[in-house]
């Protein structure tokens, strides 16, 4: 399963970056969501997929006896999912607002911070 999942993650990365290289904000947002999935799966795979038993200690024991899946990447990914979601929500609202103000979703036309025609800065003191 590790191998198959690695392949799937690679596809996720490809699609995410393909969408991110688009000029349309909405497609870039879709790319961001997929990218966070890809990263989460990478961390998850890095912790190795040896068993499918969840990392829980049986109720009558104090230490797990049977092998359980690696809890550490799960803890890391759990917070990553929530952070990625907040980040995505922020980006979404930001582009929504940019659209309201600039009336475009084409990044080529969003040039408030870096205008196209900019002369030489003043040369004096």
């Amino acid at each position, binding site marked *: *399963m590790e191998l198959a*999942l690695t392949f799937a993650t690679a596809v996720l990365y490809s699609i995410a970056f393909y969408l*991110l290289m688009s000029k349309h904000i909405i497609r870039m947002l879709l790319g961001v969501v997929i990218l966070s*999935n890809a990263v989460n799966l990478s961390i998850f795979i890095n912790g190795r997929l040896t068993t499918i038993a969840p990392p*829980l200690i049986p109720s009558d024991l104090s230490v797990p006896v049977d092998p359980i899946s690696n809890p550490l990447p799960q803890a890391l990914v759990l917070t990553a999912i929530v*952070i990625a979601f907040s*980040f995505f929500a922020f980006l979404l609202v930001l582009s929504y607002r940019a659209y309201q103000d600039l009336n475009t979703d084409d*990044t080529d036309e969003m040039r408030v911070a*870096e205008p196209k025609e900019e002369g030489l800065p003043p040369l004096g003191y």
Partner: protein
Amino acid sequence: MDELTGFVTEFGYVALGLPFVAAVLAPLLTRVLKSHSTWILALAPLAAFLIFLQGVFEVADGTVHRWGFSWIPSFDIAFSFRLDGLSLVFALLVTGIGTLIILYAGGYMKGHRDQGSFYTFMLLFMGAMLGLVIADDLITMFIFWELTSITSFLLIGFDHTREKARRGAIQALVITGGGGLILLAGVIAIREFTGLNSLTAILESGDALRDSPYYAMILILILGGAFTKSAQMPFHVWLPNAMEAPTPVSAYLHSATMVKAGVYLLLRMHPALGDTTLWMTILPAFGAVTLVVGALLAVRASDIKITLAYTTVASLGLLVMLIGVSSETAIVGATLYLIAHAFFKAGLFMVAGSVDHGAHTREIDRLGGLGRHMPLTFLAAILCALSMGGVTPFIGFLAKEEIYHALEYPTAYHIAILVAAIAGNALMFAAAFIVGLQPFVGPKPAGIEHPHEGGLRIWFGPLVLGVMSCVAALYYGLYHELFSSPMASAAYGEPVAIDIGWIPHLNLAFALSCLTALLGIGLYIVSPRLRSGIASSLDAIGWGPDRGFDQLMRGLVRFSFKVTGIVQSGRLDYYMTTTVVAVVAAMLGSMWWAGAFPTVPAYPTNIHFHEYIVLGLLLVGLGAVVVAKNRLTAIVSLGIQGFATALIFLLQGAPDLAYTQFMVETLSVVILALVMTKLKLSPSDHRPLREKLPDATLAVLVGLAFGLFLLTVVQRPFDDTLSQFFERYSYAIAHGKNIVNVILVDFRSIDTMGEIGVVMVTGLAILALIRIRIAGSGRREVKSLEQS
């Protein structure tokens, strides 16, 4: 650190802190007391001066005071200080002259709108300068060094509504701040190559630096710092341009402090870096050129403040030249001249300010006959000028005698330097009397109306300095014992006893002094003609380092504009593509470079049917996102790939992750739907094929890179120490059986705390964004109403 010894070390921090405290209080006091606040503010440097004065006797006996604490132990950096003969005299000059200057500034800046911040800048500069001369640790010294550059920038550009002041300030900052960075490189080189991290260590290291294979590099870097700060040709341009500052600044920065920092560094390093062929070649060469050119330009200037500025350049050249000679008498001459110069130059600058104040001009051609109206200023001026001209009984005379003693050897090397010294001194003699005598004698030109003496604070400072120049020479025994001998000993590295007195002996040095004076008198008489002669030859050359600086700065702006145009095109897809290319290059390139490609895996056989279904679902969702032709399809297919990911988590023994992912996907789809239905956006791809293909290629490469990377990682042995730890102790010490949750809320709870903080901040930012829209559109409506 050594144990605290004596009064000075106990109050060392106090003395250093006083100017800074006063700087903070200055605006407040000035708001209440107007310019009278300087009477109180001057107490800070005065108290520091008295604290340092307590240490004079001990230091004269050879004690070295050291105090401080470890600052960044991991880099072996300390916040430490050292008080020996050299730093003590400097500390006394900085605080003593500083006291007079603060008082003078109070008189000079009276009624100025921003005088409060002016006093703040002055006191900040004073604190920085004080820290610089008493610092022991090299990094501490560098920090104070750059602080003087920054505070002098504020002072020179104080009158920031004038372009010339701004230019002077920027020029000073670029040259001295840049030199400071060169010094930092030198300091790091010393620390790296020799392991010496403080001045004390350097001074005790004997020949360690001289024998280092990196000696030449270290020396040149240190000189880069010293020469820029001490205005050696061709870095001298900032000094005359800094005359745009109010006169108290010039009187302070260009007499005893800022410009002397470089000379201080050279004297400081002399025992460890000096006395080599390289040292004895570079320093006299730069010094001699600076001395002669500076003195010529001084006579050429018609503004008395500019004249003084160029004599400062010349004096710095003289000092560097003498330090370069490296002999005992030369170092003695340099220390004597340094003290004398601090006194008479500060005095003369203050006189120039008084003249400007009283007669409203500084042009030498339009000044004259002020002596009757400004007798006290005249007295101060003539005393300082006599010291500067090297007339007995003034400390300037002691210095000049000692300098000529140092050079009276019949070798070509000494004779060449001696000629430069005589020429420079004669020109400076003339300049001294152009400033100190000419405005006060002769007929009063028509342009000057109601010349008047300034207040007590205006004439007090220069008069004290002029009188002290004479008193110190008369009581030369005490002066040498307490101040100049310990200073020269520290700079020479061995105990030195100075015995030169004010009573001239008939010898070669005195003859040379007389020759200098005669030449000087001659030059003074022909000075108007000399001035126009130099001016016309300078016009013939037509280019100087000053114009070069402007060309350099303009070139820099043009260059950075071009580079910015290339690097920051302003197009997001360019940035994105660049990032992707960099990621691919970094990942595939490093794998290729290290030869760390994964082995080709066998086709997996242990995948269950339901796992194939889930993976298939994921890929179908992904594909649908890419080809989606409308918003709803895109959102739904995004949801499909998200739920597929959640299912993968569930099947691989991560129920917590699966539930979280389910909830997040639900919410993502909800808010996407909420926003996207309001936008008339097309999610379909409008890229033409010629853009799609390279983008797709890059995307495939990225996927390949990450895939190979993951394969490589998975094929390596796994270190599960940490996971084992959590499994073993989750219940034992944290009483929890869901290990993931225990890690989140117990073992790594501080991370989780940070994370919920981030979530909260994001939420606030989103709310703000939503609200701003209302305000923004409201404004737009108002604007469109106004336009119609």
